[in-house]
């Protein structure tokens, strides 16, 4: 099961200029919550923004990563 640090690192590595905050909701590692901010989200629907993040993990979502709750935003100055 990936750690919150690993999830953060992988999101930030995969999505251009992104910053991710990842927290463990339940303390058990199976309900994670990520807030991701990236200019790459500009102009995309929420669905498309979330897909960019989900795509980082592919089949791990619903598997080793039981649940990853997402909030995505473009940086303030570009919103």
């Amino acid at each position: 099961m990936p750690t919150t640090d690993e999830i953060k690192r992988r999101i930030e590595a995969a999505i251009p200029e992104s910053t991710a905050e990842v927290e463990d909701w339940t303390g058990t590692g199976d309900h994670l919550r990520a807030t991701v901010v990236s200019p790459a989200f500009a102009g995309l629907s929420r669905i498309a923004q979330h897909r960019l993040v989900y795509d980082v993990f592919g089949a791990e979502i619903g598997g080793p990563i039981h649940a990853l709750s997402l909030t995505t935003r473009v940086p303030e100055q570009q919103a």
Partner: protein
Amino acid sequence: MSDTNPIRDAIAEAIRDNPTILFMKGTPEAPACGFSARTVAALQALDAPFAAVDILPDPRIRQELSAISNWPTIPQLFFNGELVGGCDIVLEMFESGELAETLGVEQAGDADAVAAPQAGGPAPLGIENRLS
């Protein structure tokens, strides 16, 4: 692929035939997951009529649904054949009023109502019954 895929066909048909349809874990009366429960509560707070499909009876329902929607998690809400989102997006849209707008209903409830789902609601659509 020449194989027929009755589960995928049944899911596609359900999405096509129901203007608002929620694929969830459990039923609106007895959600089996907190994310599904909160999504149901948002729809019920808007008095939005919706069909519901429990994906738990057969793991292939989830596999085929995600293949159709290109969305990995459950729940998934569709409106007029389009994926609206999962729990995070539906709740964000509920809180901003966009969900009522998208579904064409009045925003009568408030965000607090989501914490207290009401009993009742429309009868769940039992997709597994179509597959036998």
